[in-house]
Each structure stands twice: as structure tokens, then as C-alpha cells.
């Protein structure tokens, strides 16, 4: 049983999904989804413990040893991402229950939770596998479920947002498929470790290079890295807000994980960064991303859209850390994957609470928000400070690590630009906080001036996430050492 946990982590939510359809009952499917997520969380936690104490897990799926069969390859990096995905899923699921009641028709609830389970297990499947083609398959599982979840948004623009994402996502997935095809032609294998061993001896180095570029572009589309982020803003804005909170913390992070795996484990550090592709293309894209997207976020009036652009900007930080390609830079990038997931999910949950009570997230139309929803506002402020990178929040840990790493490499300009972009975060978060605290009710009807907080079942998970964030902000060593271990393993190749 214990040895089978890696497989069960995926299979339990997979099996739970059809069960939800069988029951066709809102509450029942929520309970099933939550139970399955909790199980995955437990399994991910056990796996992480095992990886950190005993060592890397290589699990033969279906009994065939790699490279003939498909295997799971779990080291510190993907064990942490597994924990992140299943953890965020659990927390946001609790939150989702009430939120979804307002945003999705009751008859569709069981489908909603089915899709949620599919999405989560698809993401877990991408992360856990050690087989290149398998990544593609599970990418599609999670993508289809994501398109479905986004299309359930109550605004009709959710449909077009979902469609746009589908087009971009399919192009990305097709690019990855092409890349894997070229890799197979060049190496004759699909297992990641096997590929990495065979690449240096391959007679088809051009094919390897093209495979590298296509996988890189394909994954960058899925990860919404600037300038391939066009799908993200509308998708995050019009999806049911619980879905946005879930995706913001998991989907793009998983894609970044895939990027890391391909760059460092499969192609290898020397290959990836010897081709001038990364330093020449990726770093400018990252920097342009976090500067421009922070600027765009400043001018957004819809909170969800603002946070969506902010996400693209924050992904830029992560990519910048990766592009440093040093132990310190990689550590900073990985730790920001975890930290930003915590912060951004919490922020979207706070916005969801506002939407739940106020009915919209349009900043200029708020009034008396702090008086009406003090707990939500406080949560938003704390998480916002985390986004800015104030000390004792997670944002500070990762920003500090990132700036230190870039200064260490002597990349002063990057460090300076990161700071400029942080200042923009002060502005866009500050604008919201200002409205929350100071915008008086213009209609001045005394009866609405009372407190009307979101339900406890939404506040509690949000605060749980905030507390986790604060904990890792104060005890940053916990995440940093994890990320450091992962970075070390990545730089060492397989």
C-alpha cells in the first residue's frame, strides 16, 4: 500500500471523477472531490517525506521498467510541486463550496467537481511522470478540464475566454507534441532520463535543437510567460473565481515545473544555456514581462484582471531566476513558484469573497468595503503585502533570494528592474487598499453600512492560506532549503 502511494495519488482522484458523475449530486460530489484531494495531499506529503529522507523515487507504472515502460520519477522538486497542487486544491475546494453556489447553476455542480478532479489529477500526472510523452497526455487531461471549468463562469465572456485559451493551449500542446516527436527521432526513446543520456550522442543535433525550441515555446504558452500570455487575462477574469484561485496557484506553476524539468534534467544545464536561446531570449522576455505586465496591472480596474496581469509579471520573476541558471537563482525561482502560488491564490480568494458579497470586482465601484468586509479586506492587505514583498511575508523571502542571486551574478540591471516592478506592485495593490479603506458610501444608505462578511467557509480557507504564507514568510528557511535541494538536484541532471 505504502509503496503504491505515488500511483494512488493520481488514480484516486481519477476514479473519484466518474463517481461524482454517478451521484449527480452537488454536495456528494463536493465531498468526494474534497476527500480525494485530501488523499492526494496526504500521499504527496508522504512522498515528499520519503524523497527527502530516503531519496529519489522511481516507480514503475504497470510493472514495466523504464525505459520500455512508463515510470514516475520523483525528486524534491516535483514532490514539492505535488504537495503544492494537492494542498491548494484542498484549501480552495473548501472555499469553492459556497462560492460556486453563487456562480454556477446547481445542476452543473457535479460536473464542476468532476472537472476539478480531472484538472487536479491531470496536473499531478504531469508533475509526477518521468516519461516525455506522458506529459503530453496528462497536459491534455488537465487542459480539457480547465477549459470546462473556465467556461462555467457566469459571464458569457467566459465562453470566449475558454475558447481563446483552448486555441492557444492546443497550439502549445501541439508544439510540445512536435518537440517530443523530434526528440524521439533523435534519441529513439521517450523516458526522460534515457533521453537525457542519449542526447549528447545523438546524430541528429539539429533535431534536438528544434525539439528544444518547440517544447520551450509550447510550455511557455501553457505557463503564460510573456509575450505568450494573451490567454490568461480573460481566462482568470471570467472563470468562476474559485477556479481562478485554483489555477493561479497551480496550472502555470506546473507548466513552469515542466520547463525546469526539460531545461535542466532532460537537456541539461550546459545544453540549455549554451544555445544562447535562454540568456538571449528567455531573460529579456522575463524582464519585459515583469516590467510591462506590472505596468498594465496598474491600469486595470477589475481586480481579477489586475491580479491576472500581476501573475504574468510574477511569472517573469520566476523565469528570471531560472535564467540566472545558478544554484542561487534557481533556488530563488523555485521558491517563488511555491510562494507566489500561496499569495496569488489567497488574493484571488479575497477577491472571490468580495464578488460573493458585492457582486463585482470593479475597483471604482466599491464603497465602504472595509466597513462591510473587514476580514476579507485584511486578508487582501496581508496577501497584497506578500505580493509586494514586505518582510515577514513569503514575497520577501523570494524577492530577497532573487535579488541576491542576480547581484551575485553581477546582473545589477536585473536587480534594479525587479525593484522597479516591485514598486509598481506597491501602486496597484495600494490603489485597491486605498479604495477599501477610504472610499465612503456615495449612496449613504445607513442600512447597508452594517457588516456583511463572506461566509466562514470561505474566510477560513482563505485565512488558512494566509497563515501558511506568513509561516513560510517567517520561517523562510523551510521553503528555501527545499528549493535549494531541488535546485541542486536539477543542476546535477538526472
Amino acid at each position, binding site marked *: 500500500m505504502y509503496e503504491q502511494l505515488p500511483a494512488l495519488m493520481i488514480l484516486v482522484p481519477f476514479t473519484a471523477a466518474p463517481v461524482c458523475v454517478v451521484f449527480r449530486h452537488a454536495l456528494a460530489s463536493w465531498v468526494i472531490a474534497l476527500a480525494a484531494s485530501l488523499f492526494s495531499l496526504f500521499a504527496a506529503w508522504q512522498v515528499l517525506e520519503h524523497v527527502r529522507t530516503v531519496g529519489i523515487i522511481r516507480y514503475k507504472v504497470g510493472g514495466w521498467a523504464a525505459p520500455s515502460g512508463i515510470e514516475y520519477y520523483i525528486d524534491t522538486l516535483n514532490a514539492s510541486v505535488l504537495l503544492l497542487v494537492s494542498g491548494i486544491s484542498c484549501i480552495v475546494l473548501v472555499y469553492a463550496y459556497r462560492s460556486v453556489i453563487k456562480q454556477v447553476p446547481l445542476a452543473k455542480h457535479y460536473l464542476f467537481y468532476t472537472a476539478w478532479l480531472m484538472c487536479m489529477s491531470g496536473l499531478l500526472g504531469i508533475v509526477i511522470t518521468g516519461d516525455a*510523452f506522458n506529459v*503530453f*497526455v496528462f497536459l*491534455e487531461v488537465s*487542459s*480539457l478540464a480547465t*477549459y*470546462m471549468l473556465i*467556461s462555467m463562469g457566469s*459571464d*458569457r*465572456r467566459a*465562453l*470566449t475566454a*475558454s*475558447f481563446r485559451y*483552448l*486555441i492557444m493551449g*492546443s*497550439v502549445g500542446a*501541439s508544439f510540445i*507534441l*512536435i518537440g517530443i*516527436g523530434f526528440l*524521439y*527521432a533523435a534519441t529513439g526513446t*521517450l523516458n526522460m532520463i534515457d533521453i537525457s543520456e542519449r542526447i549528447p550522442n545523438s546524430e541528429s543535433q539539429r533535431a534536438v535543437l528544434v525539439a528544444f525550441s518547440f517544447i520551450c515555446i509550447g510550455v511557455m504558452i501553457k505557463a503564460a510567460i510573456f509575450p505568450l500570455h494573451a490567454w490568461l487575462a480573460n481566462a482568470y*477574469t*471570467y472563470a468562476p473565481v474559485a477556479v481562478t484561485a485554483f489555477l493561479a496557484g497551480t496550472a502555470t506553476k506546473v507548466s513552469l515545473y515542466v520547463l525546469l524539468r526539460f531545461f535542466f534534467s532532460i537537456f541539461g544545464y550546459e545544453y540549455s544555456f549554451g544555445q544562447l536561446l535562454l540568456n538571449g531570449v528567455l531573460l529579456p522576455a522575463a524582464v519585459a514581462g515583469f516590467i510591462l505586465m506590472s505596468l498594465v496591472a496598474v491600469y486595470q*480596474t*477589475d481586480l*481579477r484582471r489586475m491580479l491576472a496581469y500581476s501573475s504574468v509579471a510574477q511569472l517573469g520573476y520566476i523565469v528570471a531566476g531560472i535564467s540566472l541558471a545558478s544554484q542561487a537563482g534557481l533556488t530563488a525561482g523555485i521558491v517563488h513558484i511555491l510562494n507566489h502560488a500561496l499569495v496569488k491564490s489567497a488574493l484571488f480568494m479575497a477577491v472571490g469573497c468580495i464578488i460573493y458579497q458585492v457582486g*463585482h*470586482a*470593479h475597483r471604482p465601484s466599491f464603497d465602504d468595503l472595509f466597513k462591510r468586509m473587514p476580514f476579507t479586506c485584511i486578508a487582501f492587505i496581508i496577501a497584497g503585502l506578500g505580493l509586494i514583498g514586505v518582510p515577514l511575508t513569503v514575497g520577501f523571502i523570494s524577492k530577497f533570494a532573487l535579488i541576491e542571486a542576480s547581484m551575485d551574478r553581477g546582473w545589477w540591471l536585473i536587480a534594479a528592474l525587479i525593484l522597479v516592478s516591485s514598486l509598481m506592485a506597491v501602486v496597484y495593490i495600494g490603489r485597491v487598499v486605498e479604495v477599501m479603506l477610504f472610499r465612503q458610501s456615495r449612496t449613504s444608505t445607513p442600512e447597508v453600512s452594517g457588516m456583511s462578511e463572506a461566509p466562514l467557509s470561505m474566510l477560513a480557507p482563505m485565512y488558512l492560506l494566509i497563515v501558511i504564507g506568513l509561516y513560510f514568510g517567517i520561517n523562510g528557511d523551510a521553503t528555501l532549503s527545499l528549493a535549494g535541494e531541488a535546485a541542486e538536484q536539477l543542476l546535477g541532471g538526472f
Partner: protein
Amino acid sequence: MEKIAGLYSYWVVVVLMMAGLYIMIARYNLVKKIIGLGLFQTSIFYLYITMGKVSGGTAPILVHGDVQPVFSNPVPHVLILTAIVVGVATSAVALALIVRIYEEFGSIEADEIAIIEAQEPEA
């Protein structure tokens, strides 16, 4: 010359793939985009299968007896069998979305829908 003979079928397939990709990104009609996606994906399948072909080989099905003929590589076939189903599944979801979009917006042209969306108030 030998190179051209050995590789041109790849090149043609690349052109086909790009035709599909072009339709996906250049055409405003949503259905046409999905047709382009189908074209793109089918061409990728073709690329894979091309890679598996061995001259003078046969379909990878074992025959009775001790001596087996030369087989083409079965691995791309396996992968593409999965990919075909995945591709059609994606198309199905996309088409369902298009039907819903048509119901809501009365159009299946991306530019027209964008204009309608721009006129709506912020969510």
C-alpha cells in the same frame, strides 16, 4: 540529392502543419480555426508515422514461425493512437464551445465577438 530524396517528405509534412497553424491563427472564423487545428494535428500524426517507417518493412504484427519479417517501428503508432483520440476530444470541446458562443453572441467570427465584448461593461 540523396538528402532531398530522404527528407523531402518531412518537408512536405512541415508545410502541411504550417498550413494548419496558419488557419488557426490567421482566420477569424472559430470553426475554421478548429478545422485548422485538425489539419495541424493530423499533419503532426503524419510526421510521427513517417519517422517510424522502415523501407521494405511491414506492419508490426508478428507472424507464425521463427523468422520474422522487417517491421516498421511500432512506437510512433502507439503514441499517435493516443494522440488521435486526444485531438478529437479537443475538437469536440472546442465545437461545443463554439455552439455556446454562437448562442450567446450570435456570431462565430472572432473579430465581431471582440467588438461585442468590448461594448459590455467591466465584469
